[in-house]
């Protein structure tokens, strides 16, 4: 599928929030996720002639985000910057869903590749083939990550049904 015809702006508008959500699931930090997502979209924009021709440019952007948020320093820096930006105009506090917070915290405690797989599986509802494209591995590997990740989550979150599978 060639996305060049769609144009970068449309792609950006459509994907932005989902990509930030993916980053937030991996970091637990909105500023870090936003920083990584913006950096990834900027890179995509600069090279859109090439990336726009990919079957799935959204997968490419998520892969960049996954790599960027793996850096603890970058995360801390992004948070400091966001504090600066938001210091003067703090928005209303977001109502956090405690169950959701616990779930993503448990996801972040998983090994990195398992966490990325689980985040893409639930957030994007993607097939294992699509997830494999983001992670740069085989479908079989993704299925392994998914299985082990869900088992570990069930243990951590106390879901007996899943653990018994």
């Amino acid at each position: 599928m060639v996305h060049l015809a769609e144009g970068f702006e449309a792609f950006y508008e459509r994907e932005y929030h989902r990509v930030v959500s993916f980053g937030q699931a991996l970091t637990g930090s909105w500023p870090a996720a936003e920083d990584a997502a913006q950096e990834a979209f900027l890179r995509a924009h600069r090279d859109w002639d090439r990336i726009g021709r990919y079957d799935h440019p959204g997968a490419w952007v998520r892969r960049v985000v996954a790599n960027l948020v793996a850096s603890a320093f970058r995360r801390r820096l992004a948070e400091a910057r966001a504090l600066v930006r938001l210091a003067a105009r703090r928005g209303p506090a977001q109502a956090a869903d405690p169950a959701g917070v616990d779930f993503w915290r448990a996801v972040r405690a998983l090994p990195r590749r398992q966490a990325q797989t689980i985040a893409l599986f639930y957030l994007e509802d993607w097939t294992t083939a699509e997830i494999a494209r983001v992670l740069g591995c085989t479908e079989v590997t993704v299925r392994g990550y998914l299985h082990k990740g869900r088992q570990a989550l069930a243990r951590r979150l106390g879901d007996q049904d899943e653990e018994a599978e």
Partner: protein
Amino acid sequence: MSIDARGRRAAQTLRRDAERRGPAPDLGVLHRRARRRAVGRTGLAALAVVVAVAVAWQGLPFWPDRAPAGSTDGWPGVAGLDRRVRDAVPTGMASEADVAAASDAVWVLNRSQPSGDAILVRVDPATDRVVARIAVGPAAVRVAAGDGSVWVLRSSLNSSDLVEVDPASNRVARTVPLGNSTGPARAFGEHLLVAGGAVWVMNQAGILRVDPGSGRVMTVVGADRYGPLSGLATAGGSVWAVAGMVVQQIRPQDGTIGWEDAPEELGPMIPSGLAAGEEPG
């Protein structure tokens, strides 16, 4: 609830939360932010080159194996200390000291007097002679000179104040109380600065701006909101501070914060100090 149900619900919450935060930022904003960071990176790279050239030119740091004592007479042109040390003046016993330079005087704060009081020693750089010794009382920790005045910061557990020394008479002119600091510590250590027509103090209370005319003390609001303060310096007509990972520019005329950012170029360490200077020429 199964893991799948939990996961889908958590994903839904996350997506909703993202959308609630407003539309995607304009692409122009993203590009401008990237350009600013690129400019900062280029500046840091240039600075690194300058430092590397300077170090190569001057040679590697040299640690003297013994400290000089007594008189400079026995020092062979002082070059024995280090080839880059051009001069030395004995100012008395001091285990801890601070120093400030003005155009016509070097001020050394000698904190280790037997009486417990600190002595401010004035050295004439033209003749290498100590021309005055001024008692500035106990708990003196910093000295700063600028705008034709000399200030000493005294800081104890319960209170702190500023002592102004008149360089014309070499006497203590007045004392400006800075108040008590009873809240949480907002800074690592103390700093003192004379810049932009005001005296600046960084201590446990935060950053204080002291008007030298009226003696009025005001706190720089929000200076410590990103973490404990760790540095204070002046350059380009502004006062600069570091709080956590954030560098802040403070307007000297009213003590408000102008620009602030966490430069990526600082690297993965939290800064523990700050120095600033002007480009020569």
